[in-house]
């Protein structure tokens, strides 16, 4: 179980690193594009499509699972202040158990769309022929990893609740010391 958690954490770190590089590349491309446009009258024709079709999806989907495991997502934790740690873990178990099938469905549907687009050689017509499967494949990749993360977290919470070791900590409470110190995504 610990090994599996470590593997998922590595995969999340890898995807988040790729997303960081893509974010840097996006800024560099947009800035260079502005210089090329106003300085040399030769803007990039591909920058808008590359950023809007591919890069923004990388930024979103590649950070999904990492954002969840780092507790960087939006979460409503009003009740968490009034219940015991054990009840909070029950909340976390329910949350993971309910979310996993939803993201599994998203992963399956988007995967099928990507496969269909690949099989049909779907291409967005235009100055550059952008293959659609390449950006459609980003969604199942990110959501499949999140599904795996949710399933493993649910199992870890169940293990902890049944008296086993606490393989993953509880989400930190906002404004608490642990929340202020340890929950930064950056």
């Amino acid at each position, binding site marked *: 179980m610990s090994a599996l958690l470590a593997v998922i954490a590595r995969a999340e770190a890898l995807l988040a690193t790729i997303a960081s590089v893509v974010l840097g590349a996006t800024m560099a491309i947009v800035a260079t594009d502005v210089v090329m446009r106003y300085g040399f009258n030769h*803007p990039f*024709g591909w920058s808008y499509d590359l950023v809007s079709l591919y890069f923004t999806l990388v930024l979103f989907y590649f950070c999904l699972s990492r954002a969840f495991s780092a507790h960087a997502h939006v979460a409503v934790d009003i009740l968490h202040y009034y219940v015991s740690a054990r009840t909070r873990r029950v909340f976390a178990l329910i949350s993971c158990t309910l979310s996993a099938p939803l993201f599994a469905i998203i992963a399956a549907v988007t995967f099928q769309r990507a496969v269909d687009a690949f099989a049909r050689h779907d*291409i*967005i*017509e*235009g*100055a550059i022929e952008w293959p659609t499967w390449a950006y459609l494949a980003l969604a199942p990749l990110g959501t499949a990893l999140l599904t795996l993360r949710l399933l493993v977290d649910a199992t870890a919470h169940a293990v902890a609740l049944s008296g086993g070791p606490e393989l993953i900590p509880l989400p930190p409470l906002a404004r608490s010391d642990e929340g202020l110190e340890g929950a930064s995504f950056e």
Partner: protein
Amino acid sequence: MGRILERPAFAVAAALLLAALPARADKITLRLADGLPTTHIINRTIVEPFIRQVSEATHGAVEIRHFPAEQLGKSRDMLMLTQAGVADIGFIVPSYQSDRMPLSTVTELPGIFQTSCQGDAALRTLTAEGAILDEREFKPNGLKPLIIFLMPAYQLILSSSRPLGALKDAGGLKIRTPGGAMDLTLMELGAVPIRVGPGDIYEGMSRGTLDGALLAYQSAVAYHLGPLLKSGTLGQDFGTVAVTFSIRLKTWNALPADAQETLSRISQSLSRQACEKFDKAEQESLATVRALGINLVTPTDSDHAALEAAFAQVRANWAKRLDARGKAGTEIMKAFMDAAEAAKPR
């Protein structure tokens, strides 16, 4: 038997079954979704009459509920939304779906027809039941085209303060296109094509991320671009987009024959009337932009010759690229040009 009928479970099942069966006299409600502002000419001259005429012809038996202005989803997602049944009738613009309907973007090729009605007639020939576009693209995408027409020929409109004295002045400018063949046309002119939906042009022009757009003047007016515009071409044919309101095939096949006949008849009538209405609206919109002081440019003779050469090159490149992907580009281009020739005003 009597004992079975008395069982509560049977009664509940029978009630559910009866409730699920559609009575013949039931009203049919179809959801029509588009991405246009309610004031857009397409809504005023096509969608609203369509809804009203269908309701009148069926005495209210077929009701069409209208969801304009991307209420059900983005214009670019209309194909998927219609296929999924979110909408029964969708505003399907092949240029926005060029990955799934590449052949239907043939109307974007420049310099093929002289009048809107000629282009409309050619398009109707290709999308008729069993015709090449119906068989190759609409049916495989689970659609039946109902209303189908072309927007007036697109013009190059600029918000950039750069004066548009000749077409070469468009070189290096970022120009919005609906994608597809119009990208190739702009590249031939040395401009940089940017593919965005019409609803995003205003924001792009105001921020300076777009210098201009390929668009019909009536759309420019509908999207309130007038105050941003500085110049634009007049009387050119940069190609245009086909607009369809297509019904999901599953929904269509489930409709009673009389409802199908009514929808077909009214759709065909509106499709045939569309070109004259749009040509008239284009003239009115031209008057509006003229009044705003926009510099309307008629190309010089040398520009005209250069344009013709560029257009021929664009058509050849477009067909070649599709052929290379096994998509019958040359066949569809020839079919469209032949249909346009056959529909040429004598």
